[in-house]
């Protein structure tokens, strides 16, 4: 495996970490927005408690991913920045609003009205951001972003508005909501809250499952290359694995085996993204930008690869400490 391919794989791994950790934090915001009824305030407290200590650390996976992209594949980063100018700007608005709304709500005011207002901003931006990120991932797979020599073709700026990226955006939203509900069913201390989040997880399982099938059908219609790669090795193995995990996830939720459901839910998302990565190979942005073609000079790749073990040696024990203090022993945290 070339160094460039290895670093691309590290990026994919970061994306998966971001999806199963940061994605659930977005999902918590979505449930915050949708919470109604007598247990609404209890839901909100539980959601804030669950994500408070970890959301900033989880968010860094995205920064890490983007830094690796511009370091190791600078022309891919530049092309995506031009073609996805608008969806990425809106992603940033969502990220900035979500973060500030969360801390303002937690620290700024005790007044219920102000808290509720920040809660709405927090929820709406938590819902908007994963949709747009999902759209960007869809857009780099369809072939709508073209480069003409060193320039990005003008029509590329609209690639994100076609129906396949929009569908992947909605799927991303549903996955975030699903993961958050599953994790919260495991984490909540209160039995009634556990039941609420279990019901939500089951609902999301059904809708997200249907949406996955729709996305595959749209890939068949709109992104034929992606479809053919998704249905051949190695991607097909991951997609099939994800499909096999789905009923197991459902069964574990049904039987209230939340610890297992949490692992299976995360594994499903990992399998889906591994499948996407396998199908996307060897492209970063289909069809003009490949991993090998966009790779930075060897000296950069080597230095970056050399920083990874040092960085992870600091990161892994720190993360372990964070999660063991706040997420250890389901229901006791």
């Amino acid at each position: 495996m070339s160094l460039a391919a290895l670093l691309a794989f590290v990026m994919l791994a970061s994306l998966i970490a971001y999806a199963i950790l940061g994605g659930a934090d977005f999902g918590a915001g979505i449930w915050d927005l949708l919470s109604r009824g007598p247990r609404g305030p209890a839901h909100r407290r539980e959601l804030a408690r669950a994500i408070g200590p970890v959301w900033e650390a989880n968010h860094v996976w995205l920064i890490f991913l983007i830094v690796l992209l511009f370091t190791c594949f600078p022309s891919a980063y530049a092309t995506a920045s031009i073609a996805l100018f608008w969806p990425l700007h809106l992603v940033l608005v969502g990220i900035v609003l979500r973060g500030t709304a969360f801390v303002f709500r937690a620290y700024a005011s005790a007044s219920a009205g102000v808290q509720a207002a920040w809660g709405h901003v927090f929820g709406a931006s938590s819902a908007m951001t994963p949709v747009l990120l999902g759209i960007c991932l869809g857009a780099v797979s369809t072939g709508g972003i073209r480069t003409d020599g060193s320039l990005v073709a003008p029509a590329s700026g609209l690639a994100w508005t076609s129906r396949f990226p929009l569908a992947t955006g909605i799927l991303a939203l549903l996955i975030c909501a699903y993961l958050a509900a599953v994790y919260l069913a495991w984490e909540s201390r209160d039995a009634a809250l556990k039941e609420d989040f279990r019901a939500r997880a089951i609902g999301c399982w059904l809708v997200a499952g249907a949406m996955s099938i729709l996305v595959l059908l749209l890939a068949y219609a709109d992104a034929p290359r992606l479809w053919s790669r998704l249905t051949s090795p190695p991607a097909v193995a991951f997609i099939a694995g994800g499909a096999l995990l789905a009923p197991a996830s459902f069964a574990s939720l049904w039987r209230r085996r939340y610890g297992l459901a949490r692992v299976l839910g995360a594994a499903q998302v990992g399998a889906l993204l591994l499948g996407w990565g396998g199908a996307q190979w060897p492209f970063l942005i289909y069809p003009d930008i490949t991993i090998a073609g966009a790779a930075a000079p060897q000296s950069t790749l080597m230095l970056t690869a050399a920083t990874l073990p040092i960085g992870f040696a600091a990161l892994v024990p720190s993360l372990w400490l964070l999660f063991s203090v706040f997420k250890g022993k389901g229901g006791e945290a």
Partner: protein
Amino acid sequence: MTSLTAARIQMELSLGFHMIFAAIGIAMPAMMLIAEHRWIRYRDADALALARMWARLTAVTFAIGAVSGTALSFELGLLWPRFMAFAGPLIGPAFALEGFAFFVEAIFLGLYLYGWERLSPRRHWLCGWAVAVSGVLSGILVLATNAWMQHPVGFRVGPDGQPVDVDAFAVLLNPAWPAMALHSTLSTYQAVGFAAAGTYAWAMWRRRQTDRYSRLGLAIAMAVATGAAILQPISGDLLAKRAHVHQPAKLAAMEGQFQTERRAPLRIGGIPDVDRRETRYAIEIPAALSFLAASDLDTEVLGLDRFPREDWPPVLVTHLAFQIMVGAAMAMLVVAAWYWLTRWRARPRGIDIPLPRPLLASLVVCAPLGFVALEAGWVVTEVGRQPWVIYNVMRTADAATPVTDVWRSLVLFGTLYAGLLVLLGFFLWKLATERGSTPEHS
């Protein structure tokens, strides 16, 4: 509005906004740790209240710093894709290391903020150390990028305009980096220290009585601020000497030096007139600039006359920003000396002395000056580098995005950041006027 103009304004807004929060996120944990140490060591309840208050402040500013920093990591490409396509492989590894430092900072901040009851006091304090150290480290690593833009190393420009013979490691050995990193790190302590000191001075001024909480807060803040304020001119001098050798056009713009001369004067104030090629109304100290540039009164200082007109930085902005920075620094030094002199005269009583009202008023005036100096210093180094984005390699105009409606994203971000600043000012005001006894979450 052209895309270039819009992109520049959006970048300036985003960086100028981010910098305030990044600075607080770097420096505030140090004050927090000093206060928490007093609590652990002496069971000083006021110190604990201060540590908790500063932790709350760090929580909010760190979060805004983190999300606005994320925005910047995208905006680099969204606004300057050609710059990033060129520079990414060179500046990227420092950013990757910064990413890890930032990761560690975020993790330990989570442990610190939510761990008051879950960790032993000592472990909690150590988590705070991890926040403070990794915050400084990530600031320093980001500065590697800026140092490289001022002093690009580790490549040649190839025939197609892209870098060849790339030696990414050279960027981490860049001689321009240490002095810049030192100067900007000190500026965060100075800005945050004086802002906090001014807040407590204001509380004492208003109430006409001094509670111990405010006096202790003021003392800790002034200790941090004064240390930085004393070291800052020294690190600034290193930068000026570097500019004399490596970026003479920037030094000429900072000083309003239009003609090349020996025994060049140091100008205090004054308005550079680019059309008449002279700086008017300045107080001139003969030969002082030559001395500062290379420790010799007879040093020749290059004026803007030695550079083609299209390579001049905006002289007026660079000169005025530099004057503002130096003026603010001097004012802060004087007020700091006054404070410590007052304390020293009554030294047996420690912090328990009434401070004279003129001193309190001066401290209040100094509250924003550290941030003013920080932003002005940034303007000096960035505007002074123009018209280059990578000094002598790539012009800013050649780096901008080809997207044509950047003004729309400028409006979007301008509105977003302006709104957040107003809300944050409101929040800080509330926090400053209440006592810090509330636990930071319940």
